[in-house]
């Protein structure tokens, strides 16, 4: 039997994952709704002064995106574990890291990309100055895949645990700190007229590193969690 090429594997895996999402397309909107609600809480709690909102907007948007990503992490491997297809992935002759990379890619496309598209709207709700939208989108575009990749490692480690929601957050958040610092920091720097591309470059470097290492780490973590 010939082993299928990596590209064919990726196609099959991505097709299956996308079809599963499409069958339950209502769920796919939930991260977006969650981020919208978090954003809506801040003017309600702090008062609706545009000046004050504009000052906190970059941080609030970053935290909202980060938290909504955190809540979707548990789904990354959970349903596959329950119907047994995760074991099949482990047993297959295809490199596990590659399959996980494809899985994370699909997950990011379904959960984070809609958020990215909706960011201008959310930014408008918080009266973010328009010239900051560029830095914000750039930092989110590089930061959210990084969050997904780091999160995949933690999700793989906790996949065997029944009620892992809170634990997953406790494990993932310390690892998210640097991404948040550079992501929100880039926008904060831009708002003060300081050079902000440095932080973006660092995020890009982190993403390049995580693209290579995180799938391997997640594959190891899955093997540890399921043996």
């Amino acid at each position, binding site marked *: 039997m010939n082993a299928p090429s990596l590209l064919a594997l990726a196609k099959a895996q991505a097709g299956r994952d996308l079809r599963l999402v499409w069958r339950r397309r209502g769920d796919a909107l939930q991260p977006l709704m969650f981020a919208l609600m978090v954003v809506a809480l801040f003017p309600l709690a702090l008062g609706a002064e545009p000046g004050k909102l504009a000052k906190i907007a970059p941080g609030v948007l970053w935290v909202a995106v980060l938290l909504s990503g955190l809540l979707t992490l548990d789904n990354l491997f959970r349903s596959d574990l329950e119907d047994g297809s995760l074991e099949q992935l482990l047993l297959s002759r295809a490199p596990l890291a590659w399959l996980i990379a494809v899985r994370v890619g699909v997950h990011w496309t379904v959960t984070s990309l809609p958020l990215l598209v909706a960011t201008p709207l959310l930014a408008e709700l918080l009266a973010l100055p328009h010239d900051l939208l560029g830095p914000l989108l750039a930092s989110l575009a590089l930061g959210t895949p990084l969050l997904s990749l780091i999160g995949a490692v933690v999700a793989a480690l906790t996949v065997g645990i029944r009620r892992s929601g809170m*634990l997953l957050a406790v494990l993932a958040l310390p690892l998210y700190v*640097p991404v948040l610092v550079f992501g929100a920091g880039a926008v904060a*720097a831009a708002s003060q007229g300081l050079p902000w591309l440095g932080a973006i470059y660092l995020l890009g470097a982190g993403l390049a590193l995580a693209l290579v290492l995180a799938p391997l780490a997640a594959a190891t973590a899955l093997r*540890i969690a399921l043996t």
Partner: protein
Amino acid sequence: MNRLILWFNKTGSPPNFDRFAARWTPWAFAVAFATMAIGVYGALYSVPADYQQGESFRILYIHVPAAWMSLFVFVVMAIQSVIALVWRIKICELLAMACAPVGAAFTLITLLTGSIWGKPTWGTWWTWDPRLTSELVLLFLYVGVMGLYAAIEDRRAAARAAAFLALVGVVNVPIVHFAVNWWNTLHQGSTIRLLGPSKMDASMMWPLLFTVIASKAWFIGSLLQRARAMNLEQESAKDWAREAAGEDA
């Protein structure tokens, strides 16, 4: 076989480790108590008060060793984790997991003494100084390792998963430190800085040496004691373990 490797392999077996830990734990604690007593006496009575900070600086003799240990224990935990994951040595899994609560305690002591010290000298309990922030994240990482270890039923699987997390964490610590440094220089807020080990007088130095040795010895004793208890618990079905635990077989 090389004598060192032979010793290593022998001590790695659960009954031998139990004997080894039982023999050395009291010594480690004895050294810790003795050096701690001398160090604390020196810190509280014999060392002169600081010309700038007065008496409040004396907390340094607890704060600084605890801060060093909080990082040192994490590195020890990571090294044990590598050994546990690569060579699957049972004792190393236990030692790595026994490190986490001790390290978390040192981190907590660092944060608490730091804020007690911060109140009279900086006028605030807490400031988002890079060092304080990375120490806080370090505490979260310890808590994560302990939480993951507690959450998984199977003890060996739990130890391996938590050991892997410790490895991810040890990569994360320098990145966090770099990130929060960058972040604070960006804001240029307070110019408050930690005192730093700069130009400490020799007459003030010697109790620090004693408390540093005490914290190391305390760590060794505590680590061995914890690992021994975990070891006995896991081997509790075996005869030697019942005997060692003083239970009638």
